[in-house]
């Protein structure tokens, strides 16, 4: 049997997701966050118990990946309306927390609000570092092809600090998935934020706000947030997708693990130099 024809389920952007890491099991971490609220994470029986100030909860089935030997991408859902992401960077003893919430926009429930807080991990025997992860523009000018599955690859250009731009060519499955978007919208620029974790490691969080604003109910995916920890040393990224999808006329919640492998790509000047039509 040709095992390339193994009857695998189509997993789209989750296809190459790496196995979960359980290295944090049995551990507890006090996070000293810059918003002033005590934040504690403890991991037992594959459940993350968290507190932020007066809030606390159990996050059953936390998902944790490693982006390199000492950096963890941790995510869990508090409810379907609230998703937490922590980047735990043990080499530098730093942490970035991203909380995504649905239903915060009074005009459109699908819009996802995003709150970033930076901080440090208190490790006994070590001083709390003064440095922090930070929003960055160092990577602007990066062009990369991300392969999500044997058939699906997309090409990203990071040209502005608050946007990313995507394209694909005819050889990719994306051409059949996304071509309608290209007809309706004047460009593929979308809202994004970038956080520098360390040299050659960037946290990218993109939210499909512009497509939602323009297309609304015509879309299948409604303002999804993809948060990806990109390791440019090793040229792969790990992360999660969060939002809503309309499937068979029914609204469903989305919370999936995603990953892809990168390679350099040449993109046409017409794509790279086109003005972002969504900014002044």
């Amino acid at each position: 049997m040709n095992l390339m024809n193994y009857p695998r389920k189509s997993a789209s952007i989750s296809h190459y997701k790496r196995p979960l890491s359980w290295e944090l099991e049995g551990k507890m971490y006090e996070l000293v966050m810059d918003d002033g609220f005590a934040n504690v994470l403890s991991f037992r029986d594959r459940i993350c118990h968290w507190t932020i100030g007066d809030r606390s909860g159990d996050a059953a089935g936390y998902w944790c990946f490693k982006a390199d030997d000492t950096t963890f991408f941790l995510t869990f859902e508090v409810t379907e309306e609230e998703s937490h992401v922590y980047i735990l960077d043990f080499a530098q003893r730093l942490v970035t927390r991203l909380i995504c919430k649905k239903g915060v926009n009074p005009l459109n429930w699908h819009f996802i609000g995003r709150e970033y807080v930076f901080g440090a991990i208190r490790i006994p025997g070590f001083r709390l570092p003064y440095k922090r992860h930070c929003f960055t523009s160092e990577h602007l000018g990066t062009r990369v092809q991300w392969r999500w599955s044997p058939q699906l690859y997309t090409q990203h250009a990071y040209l502005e600090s608050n946007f990313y731009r995507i394209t694909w060519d005819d050889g990719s499955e994306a051409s059949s998935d996304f071509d309608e978007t290209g007809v309706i919208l004047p460009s593929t620029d979308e809202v994004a934020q970038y956080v520098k974790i360390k040299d050659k490691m960037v946290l990218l969080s993109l939210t499909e706000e512009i497509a939602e604003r323009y297309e609304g109910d015509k879309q299948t995916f409604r303002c999804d947030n993809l948060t990806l920890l990109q390791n440019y040393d090793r040229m792969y990224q790990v992360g999660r997708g969060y939002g809503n999808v309309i499937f068979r006329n029914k609204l469903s919640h989305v919370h999936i693990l995603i990953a892809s492998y990168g390679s350099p790509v040449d993109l046409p000047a017409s794509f790279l130099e086109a003005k972002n039509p969504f900014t002044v």
Partner: protein
Amino acid sequence: MNFTHDGKNYGFTQYRAPLAFDLYGKEFKLRSPAAEYTLRFDDKGFVALGDDRSYCETLKNSNDLYICVFGEKLSYLVLDLETGIALLKQSPESEMEFLTVDGYTPDALPGSTEEMGGTAVRWNFGCGRYLEHAYHEDGSCTCIWSPREDKRKTFKTAHYYKLRDSFFLVELDAAGPFYTDIPIGYSTLVLLQDYDRLLADGFIYSPALNDCLLVSAYATAPQFLA
């Protein structure tokens, strides 16, 4: 600044997955009809097999499935905690041992398999760096090494083991031609392959240098081998 540059910082080991330390602090009893071992991960980056303690590197291929490389003799272990099975090879010259873990009694221990015959795959180890393999029904393997698509060789030194559905271990002695992306001298390949997610983890080994390099790869359809 374009962070991708030419994306070749690590060459053939570019896509190597992060090392896994999930097993740190754990101890396992490995048993076969002929042998019994205590396996202890007593410190991060170290493993003790019986009384022999050595540095180890571990990659995680799937939830509860690991491949560890350790010891001066280049031992390696595939540990499947889901099925309670382990494969252990204590040196490149020794035979593969099939063991149970912690008293599990699986329906059947893994062994050599012919199920891979007919598979043709491209394993991508880095940006533009790949191996194409065609695994034949007679157990041989035809290889192409990037970037030399013109040179293909067939080897009879392939061993295939099936762990469980979609998970296979391939062990191959395959000295490639000169001027390929694989470092010269690294002729032995051990690759734990998952054909469901099309991901693989393992190592390449140089008998001459007595050195191994951990690798990870994703699979796409081959372009040169049918």
